[in-house]
Every structure is written in C-alpha cells, then in structure tokens.
C-alpha cells in the first residue's frame, strides 16, 4: 500500500465517515480516532514538505492535465494543519455538547457529516484541478448544510436552506467558470492557467469563479446567508463553519489569483473595496446584534472583509506580500473564531441563553468560558501578541509603505468597531451590579472549557512564533518566488 501522506489525509477521514455511519453506536470513538489519525497524516506531510518544499502525487499515475494531481506546499500544509488541529479540538468540545441520551441522534449525525466535511476540506487544500475543486466544494457544501441544521430548529432550517441556495449558486457559477476555462485553455489543472493567454473567455471564467467563491466565502454583499446560518447552528458546528469552512473558498480564491494572469489594479482594488464594505457593515451589524452568537457570526463577515483588504492592501505589485498577509489572517481567524464560537456555546449552555443584554444578570458565571472568549477576542481585534495582531500589523505596514493610506484608515476604523462590539460582551461578563441572586458556587469552569481554551491560547501563542509560521507558509513558493 502507498505511504503517501496526502492520500491518507484524504482517505482517513473518508473511511472514518463511512465507519461512523455504519456503526452509529461507536461514532464517538471512531470519529475521534479518524480525526486524530488525519492529524497524524498531516504531520507526516508537514515533514515531507519541510524536507522537499513541495510534494506532488499524480493520482492513478496519470500526470496532469489528463489526470488529477495532489500537491502540497507550505500554504496547503498550513491550511491542513489548521483544519485538522482545530477540528480535533472542536471534536473534543463536541463530546460535551452532544452528551446524554437525548442527543443520541445529533451525535450520530454530527460525526459522519463532520468527517465528510474534513474529507472535502483536505481535498480542497491538496487539489490542483479546478473541476476537482468544484466537486470538493460540493462535498463541503452538503456536509456543511447538514451540520448547520443539526439542531433541527426552524431558524436553523431556514438558515440552512438559504445557505444551501447560496452554496449551489456559488458552485454553479464556479462550474460555468470551469467551462469557460476549458473552452479557452483546453485543460483544467491550475498550472495550465499560468501560460494561458489573456482573452475574453478567460476573463469571463475568472469573473464567474471569483463571484462564485465570494458567495461561498460570504464576502460583502454576498454575505447575506452567513450570519443566520452560523448563529443558529449548534456550537461545535458553528465553530467548524465559521472557523474552517469559509476558509476553503478563500483558499481557492487565493490559489486562483496566484495562477490566473489577469489581475489588474481595478480588480484588486474592487476586492479591497468590497472587503472594506464588509468590515464597516459587518461591524455596525455586530454592534446591533442582540445575541452573542449572532455577534460572533457578524464578526466573521468583518474578518472575511479584512482578509480581502489584506489581499488588496499593496495593489498588484505587492501581491506577493499580500497573499502572505491574507494567509496569516486566515490562520489567525480560523483558530480564534473556532475558540470563540465554542466559548459562546459554553456560555449559552451554562446560562441557558445568549442574549448580550442579560449577560450580567446571570446568577451563573462560566468564568473560564468567558476568559476564553476574551482571549479569542484579543486575537480577532488584533491586539499583541496574538497572531491576529501580527497579521493586522503586516497589513498596516504594507499599506503604509506602498502609500495606500485608505486601507490603513479602513482597517483602523474596523479595529475600533471590533473593540466597540466586543466591549458590549465584556461589559456583560464583568458587571455584577445588576445581579439579583448571588453567583452560584463552582460554576466557573468545566472540562468542556479546555478545548476552546487551548484554541484561544494557540491563537495568542502563535503570534509569538509568527516568524517560523511565516517561513513555513512560504515553503515550496506558493506565492511565487520573492520578487
């Protein structure tokens, strides 16, 4: 049998998904084991990438363009590691969220859907063929919609259906783009796009695919489906959806722009402008949100916008740097947002509600979950020494040095907004004067707080090792050789 870690990163979660579906009673054990095994495969892959810089496997022995190749470099391994590590911790957190006999059914369906989702995401990060990427985003979409509606409430189902429509449309726009690529280039592997001559068909293809991906990743104004979907899912599902799933489409977007030779000033700038709109609009909506999870969901809209600003912050000449900053912000947000959604879920579970206005009336104070939430917020706001800070700082520095002051202004306003909306939550955590009953004893923490806390600490701690992380992302030159 092959010893290729990329193949295993794809097949282990797939086999896991089938096994948990066949043996629902053993779902927890099999599910955890498969996620852990996938983490192992990714570690082996990281070792290979460290040694060689870039690894490729032509599946079936058919080289591209006829066949489909798997490829890993620093960027893809970073995404894979984030997905698996965050996924493992969310899985551990899910143990507590779905405990008890009443949750039997939820538990039984959470695991196969989540493992299929993991298969799809790993497939995206290893993919080099645009049609294969289309199939992968559909795997992700169906699993993600299944996870969105796991709670079975009406709000979740409505949001899930809306998400489904957006997902299908996004995927079909992407598919039509694939058709135009084939029409003009005659092949479907990403590497084949580099040499393609610019033409109307190629521009149409790029436009269709980018719009489809914007819809999938929820960039303003195509974010309409995200807040309800992420806010109404159960906490572990929200963590996966917000922390990981939207990143898959973002990653395809980054890769596509690396391979498509068509990026001009207008296109790059308009991406940044949409990002800026997302930061401002999302910030205002987060300020107005009444429920904690809705606030966190709007903050995802903001962060996606920020990543697009990062993409545009130095204009076309600075794209090499911009991709790096965007990748850093994707990583920072993935870790911190998963921690934040799980912490929000814990707070909701302890309080029985997540209405921000009433946070300070609670007789129970889940202190550790609140602490976790605050730590995650530090990374998302972008305070030192978190990874979010490093990402935002590089963005500001790059924008200043290339003279794009407008991006600096927007980013600063966005940061102020995020301080403002997270302060609403912190105020609820820290005020005790509106309480009617004394705080119940020993409700401050539970074992279930550990996975989100670990993630939040990682979001902060990764900032301290940002330099090695950055040099790892650049292994195999995913962004092209430095100019």
């Amino acid at each position, binding site marked *: 049998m092959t010893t290729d870690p990329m193949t295993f990163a794809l097949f282990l979660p797939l086999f896991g998904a089938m096994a948990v579906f066949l043996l629902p009673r053993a779902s927890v054990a099999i599910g955890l084991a498969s996620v852990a095994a996938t983490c192992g495969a990714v570690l082996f892959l990281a070792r290979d990438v460290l040694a060689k810089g870039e690894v490729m496997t032509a599946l079936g022995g058919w080289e591209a363009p006829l066949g489909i190749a798997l490829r890993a470099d620093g960027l893809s391994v970073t995404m894979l590691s984030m997905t698996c590590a965050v996924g493992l911790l969310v899985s551990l957190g899910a143990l507590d969220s779905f405990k008890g006999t009443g949750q039997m059914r939820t538990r039984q369906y959470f695991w196969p859907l989540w493992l299929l989702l993991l298969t799809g995401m790993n497939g995206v990060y290893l993919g080099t063929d645009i049609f294969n990427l289309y199939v992968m985003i*559909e795997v992700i979409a169906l699993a993600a919609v299944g996870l969105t509606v796991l709670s079975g409430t009406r709000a979740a189902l409505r949001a899930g*259906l809306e998400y489904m*429509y957006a997902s299908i449309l996004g995927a079909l*726009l992407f598919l*039509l783009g694939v058709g135009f690529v084939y029409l003009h280039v005659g092949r479907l592997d990403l590497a084949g796009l580099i040499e393609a001559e610019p033409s109307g068909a190629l521009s149409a293809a790029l436009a269709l695919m980018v719009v489809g991906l914007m819809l999938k990743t929820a960039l303003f104004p195509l974010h309409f489906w995200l807040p309800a979907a992420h806010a109404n899912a159960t906490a572990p599902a929200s963590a996966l959806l917000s922390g990981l799933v939207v990143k898959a489409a973002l990653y395809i977007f980054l890769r596509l722009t690396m391979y498509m030779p068509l990026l001009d000033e207008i296109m790059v700038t308009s991406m940044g402008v949409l990002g800026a709109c997302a930061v401002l609009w999302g910030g205002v909506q987060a300020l107005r949100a009444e429920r904690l999870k809705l606030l966190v969901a709007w903050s995802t809209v903001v962060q996606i916008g920020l990543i697009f600003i990062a993409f545009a912050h130095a204009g076309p000449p600075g794209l090499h740097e911009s991709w790096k900053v965007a990748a850093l912000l994707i990583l920072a947000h993935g870790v911190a947002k998963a921690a934040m959604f799980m912490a929000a879920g814990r707070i909701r579970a302890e309080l029985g509600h997540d209405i921000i206005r009433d946070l300070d009336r609670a007789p129970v104070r889940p202190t550790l979950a609140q602490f976790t939430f605050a730590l995650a917020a530090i990374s998302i706001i972008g305070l030192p020494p978190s990874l979010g800070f490093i990402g935002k700082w590089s963005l500001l520095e790059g924008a200043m040095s290339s003279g794009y002051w407008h991006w600096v202004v927007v980013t600063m306003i966005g940061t102020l907004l995020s301080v403002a909306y997270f302060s609403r939550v912190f105020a609820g955590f820290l005020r005790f004067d509106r309480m009617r009953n004394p705080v119940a004893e020993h409700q401050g923490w539970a074992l279930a707080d550990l996975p989100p806390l670990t993630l939040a600490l990682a979001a902060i701690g990764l900032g301290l090792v940002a330099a090695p992380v950055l040099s790892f992302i650049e292994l195999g030159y995913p962004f092209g050789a430095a100019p």
Partner: protein
Amino acid sequence: MTPDMIYGLTGIAVFAIGLAGALCAQDRLRRLLALKLCSMGAGFLLVVAAWRVPPDAPDPVPHALVITGIVVVVSATAVALALIRRLQSLETRDDD
C-alpha cells in the same frame, strides 16, 4: 451558424434565466428549479466545448465532467428538497 454556437448561446441564455430566477424567485421550489436551470446552462457550455468539427469524436473529458456535475446537482437538489419539506412541516404545524 454551427451547432456548437447555437447550443452554446442556448446554454448561456438558460444559465442567465436560471440566475434571474434564483435571485428573484420567492417560492422555495421555484428557486430550486431556477438553480437547476443554471446547472443545465453550465452543462451545455461544457458539452459544446467538447464538440469537435468531425462530430463523431468529441473530447470525452468534458462529457465525464458533465455526468459528474449532474450527479452532484441531483444530490444537492435532494438535500434542498428535504429541507423544504421539513421546514414546511414545521411551519404548518406551528401555525396551527
């Protein structure tokens, strides 16, 4: 006028009609039908792109892609329909 041109434009028109429907349709089933139209439009484009002038030897790869696409879309349709049915059941029950 060659068949590929005619059907290519047909496909693009069908995609655009589907897009318009997906953006504006209010009824849930109708929106799904509109999305199905989009998928057919994309399928047309790929089949047309595979067509070659000696009409007996088209490129088989896009054909395989369209078959894959058809199965993927029917899967997504089935999930969306299940959501629609369940949602309608819940909404009707709660209205009583």
